[in-house]
């Protein structure tokens, strides 16, 4: 059973940029991603620039003062690469020098988890956390802040993640 119907409980923001992601050899599941936050996080609109600042550790607090805890998938994960290219405009490797320099100043890159399920668990249980998963993997444990137009529930039928 797909998890898509549960999304009716969360607020969604269309994010047109995400519609143009390149197809991945891994299949359609990597074409659409959803930005997710902990359910307790107040919903505030996030634009691409703000999202980029969060994942570059430039923006470090939510509006309510909670520390933002960005979470990444591993650098080789297709969804991480898609997210990085779409939001940051860079491959993960192109940020190696940036993170080396940040480390020299005592600032660390986002936490990294090994799978989308780990991402969901981490974000669900961690106040202030923000991450991303495939559009078809999101469920009611988290809130979705951004939603690709191609996954508009009013227009598209629910899809099931191939691996689920």
């Amino acid at each position: 059973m797909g998890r898509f119907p549960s999304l009716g409980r969360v607020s969604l923001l269309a994010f047109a940029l995400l519609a143009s992601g390149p197809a991945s050899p891994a299949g359609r599941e990597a074409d659409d991603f959803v930005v997710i936050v902990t359910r307790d996080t107040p919903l505030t609109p996030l634009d691409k620039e703000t999202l980029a600042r969060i994942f570059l550790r430039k923006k470090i607090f939510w509006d309510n003062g909670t520390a933002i805890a960005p979470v990444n998938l591993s650098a080789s994960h297709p969804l991480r690469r898609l997210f990085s290219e779409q939001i940051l405009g860079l491959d993960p490797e192109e940020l190696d020098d940036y993170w080396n320099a940040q480390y020299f100043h005592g600032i660390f890159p986002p936490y990294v988890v090994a799978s989308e399920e780990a991402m969901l668990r981490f974000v669900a249980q961690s106040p202030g956390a923000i991450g991303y998963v495939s559009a078809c993997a999101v469920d009611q444990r988290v809130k979705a802040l951004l939603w690709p137009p191609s996954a508009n529930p009013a227009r598209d039928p629910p899809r099931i993640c191939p691996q689920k």
Partner: protein
Amino acid sequence: MQPMGAKTRRTGSGAVQQYRNQTIQPIRFGQHKPQHSARAGDDPTSPWEYHLGHGYRLGDSGVTLGGYASAEILRPSGRSWSFQAEDISLFVTAEKGRWRFFSETEVNDALSAGNGEAFGIRRARFDAERLHLDYTLAEELKFRIGKFLTPVGRWNLIHADPLVWTTSRPRVTAAPFAPHATGVMAFGDFNALDREWNYSLYAGGKNQLDMKKPDESLDSVYRDTFGVRVVNEMPGRFQMGASYAHFEQVEFFPGSRDLAELDFFWTRNRMELSGEFAYRWSAGKDDWGLYLQGVAPLPLPLGENVYAIGRYEAFQREDSSRLANRWVAGLAYRPLPPLVFKVEYSVGVDAGNSVSERIVEGSPEGFAASVAVLF
């Protein structure tokens, strides 16, 4: 196994690919601990983790230990060779809410040899390179107190050996000002005019915390320092910065100095261009310097991790009528992001004045090779 669709840009060795695929979790988020796991790979890994280049996180304490190390072999023109375990720097980072403590303790010349000396630790010395406490009021306004890197130019702020492409350091990035300041700073990041900016405003007393500085240090004694730096950047793409500093120089032509500096950095497809220009003025005597550096990857069998580096430097000292310059050509092999092997040769003209001989120490003529790693 590597997921389909993943790019393998650095394919020089199996170790590289293993590094790429590993799960790095270099940050601690306090209560952000997973409590359940379903199957292997679904559970974020333990907070007690070490990964090369990202330090060792001490569980939930908020403390991370790390650092970098480097060793170099120098063969300056007309002089004998020397070996130095140049730097072993230890970082301690502690975060608690809006507070962050950071220290860098450096062991310089931990092991040295050459110039007629056998291997030994005679020249080893400890320096408190950095020691500061930060408080974040907002992203746009943070405060720092302690000893910190003087925000002048790009090189000085990333001068650690694993972060730069050459063993030598352009003179203009250290000689005209104090690389460190001890005092207070306000700094922050903000977005304006559709661009990312950061700034630093600082003021300090003496630049040194150490009771005694060795003679060969680049870090001369300065006091009554204040300055500002503004940077426009797009991480991973470009950076442009401008700095101003005022200070009192205590040694070598003591007196008041003002310094203006401009710098840029651009990178695309692993090619880089960067440069800095600084002009320092005082009553009657001015000096200036610059460097321009280019870096390009080489298509060699080792993979895509070998880079060619070329640099031109010029430095006009206030006590000399002769322009000193350097041409530096080098190669760097970077099998992993935190690890780099470097070799270079430099030629040029010195200012011919021995009064400030220490100024040329950072960029001698001749051969240099080194290895450096963030750990």
